[in-house]
């Protein structure tokens, strides 16, 4: 029970291999006063290990339940779509909202993400002001407006 509390301390899990993007995201969150507990993981394999308490996270017991997962598609080792598939095919994790945050506007990426039950698909704007706005809207919606079980 104690450990579960610790796991639940992660509100936002950001899966992002690009350090700059991760930093931009953190700053945008901060600027929007969404200062929840944020964890940044740099590759798909590590993300799955974290969620399902495997590998380096094996000591921890139980499945992680962040409030939202911001998932990039292009990741080393295991890519974002594979991570998405695994999260959404496990009954314990499939209720976690996964927001795909990608640079790609390609129809193929969008369709595939939704087929794998992504909860949102958001294109990361190049322009920082737009990026901040996007993060703000996203935070307001998923962390404030949206009700979770």
């Amino acid at each position, binding site marked *: 029970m104690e450990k579960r509390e610790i796991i639940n301390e992660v509100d936002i899990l950001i899966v992002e291999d690009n350090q700059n993007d991760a930093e931009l995201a953190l700053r945008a969150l901060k600027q929007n006063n969404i200062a929840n507990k944020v964890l940044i993981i740099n590759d798909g394999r590590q993300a799955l290990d974290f969620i399902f308490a495997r590998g380096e996270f094996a000591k921890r017991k139980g499945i992680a339940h962040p409030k939202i997962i911001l998932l990039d598609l292009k990741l080393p080792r295991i890519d974002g779509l594979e991570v998405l598939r695994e999260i959404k095919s496990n009954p314990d994790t499939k209720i976690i909202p996964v927001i795909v945050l990608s640079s790609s506007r390609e129809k193929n990426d969008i369709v595939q993400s939704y087929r794998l039950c992504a909860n949102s698909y958001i294109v990361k704007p190049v322009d920082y002001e737009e*990026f901040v706005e996007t993060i703000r809207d996203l935070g307001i919606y998923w962390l404030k407006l949206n009700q979770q079980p």
Partner: protein
Amino acid sequence: MAMRTLAGFFLLFSLLICHGRDILAFGTAGRLDALHLKGFGPLTGDYSFQDILKIAGSLFIPMLIVMSVLWIIILRRQVRKKTTGLNNEISEHKKTMESLRKQKLLLNEMEKVSKTGGWEYDLKTQKVTWTDGLFQITGVSPSDFDTSSYKNSLSFFHPADQEKLDKAFFNTVEKGDPYDFELRIKTYDGTDKWIRLRGLAEFLEGKLTRIYGGASDITDRKEREMELKKLKDELEDQVTERTAELQDKIRSLDKSQKAMLYMVEDLNAITRELKEEREKLEFSNKELEAFTYSVSHDLRAPLRAINGFARFLIEDYSDTIDDEGKRFINTIRYNADKMDQLISDMLDLSRVSRTNIEFNLVELSALVRSVFQEVASEDEQKLFHLTIEDMPPVICDSSLIKQVWQNLIENALKYSSKSQTRKIITGAMENENEIVFYIKDHGAGFDDQYRHKLFGVFQRLHRENEFEGTGVGLAVVKRIIRRHGGRVWAEGKTNEGSTFYFTLPRKELKSDY
């Protein structure tokens, strides 16, 4: 009596034989005396002439009578003998005649049945004789027609055969060579017939006496022969024809077989080429996809970092950076955005070629209205007057055609932004094969001499500081319309607006699209 007569006659006859010489010497006195001596003893007196006559008479008259009787007897016997012979001959002759008559009847009958006849030419009389059979064959009656003339007889034959026959006949006359021909004749009633005619020479003691021969009506056989020949000819013709046809077929089959083989070879070659091409295409498609993936995912991140961190610089170090420094930083950020736009446009352009077209019936009037509402800002929607004239529904890819209208409306809005007249008119004109759509604005227009550059990639007819843009929008329009089998063109004048046209071919909606 008879015996006596015979004895008397015999005696007289012996006397004659024995003394014949003496009797012959009658007249000579000496000899007469001798004779008298022998017969009557020696002469005793003189004999007068009368005595002599008496003696002679008494001697010769009986002799004469006897001889006459004898002669009559002999003659009677001879006549009797001859009469018997004659009677025999007559009866023989009668028999012969009867047999001849019978044979003639037989011959006539045979001739009639076998349709044959005979003829002869007597060289002495130079006359021709026919048997009944010939009359029957030629159809003339002996009373109506004089066959005896050689020329008359010849007249029945076909002119061409007459010459041949004439030659053969005279050859027989001259050399005795026989002949045997099949010839055409025209009978008395004009019927054409074929006859076989033979001619032979008869020699008597090495001398030609006559020419004779037979003729038979071979019309039936000839007709059958000709019929058979005709049949045979027809059959041969048919066989030849069929053979030719077959050979033609064989040849054409041979040709088609060869052609097929070549085609198969060609097909194999083409298939190989196609396979190679497909592999290449698949490879380049994969490359293109990988490239696109990389462009869309990786190329933007650095730009985002440039833009974002430049922004951080202004935010965090605004005190130490002067205005000029801030302008530089903003320029950096602006160009990062610009680069992002270029990347987006390039991806749009390549997407047109990459995506599969899905044909659907699309209501264009509604589409244009919704696109305008999406594309135009609230201010623009207030400022601009959009006219949508009647447009027929058309079979096309709705998302691609939507992209076309987006680009065209965006252009119309952009290039009219500095104009007084803010009117956009859209509409369509139909003809037999296609529908022409147009969008007309009263904006900046363009210099008509450069209109060929309008639809080129990254081609612009306006400066960046006049109107922003990457020069990809119309290239995208052109690609989409091309993929639909349509055309694009534009009319315009500088500062007088422009009209853009595109066509979509009329299509039947098919399930296999």
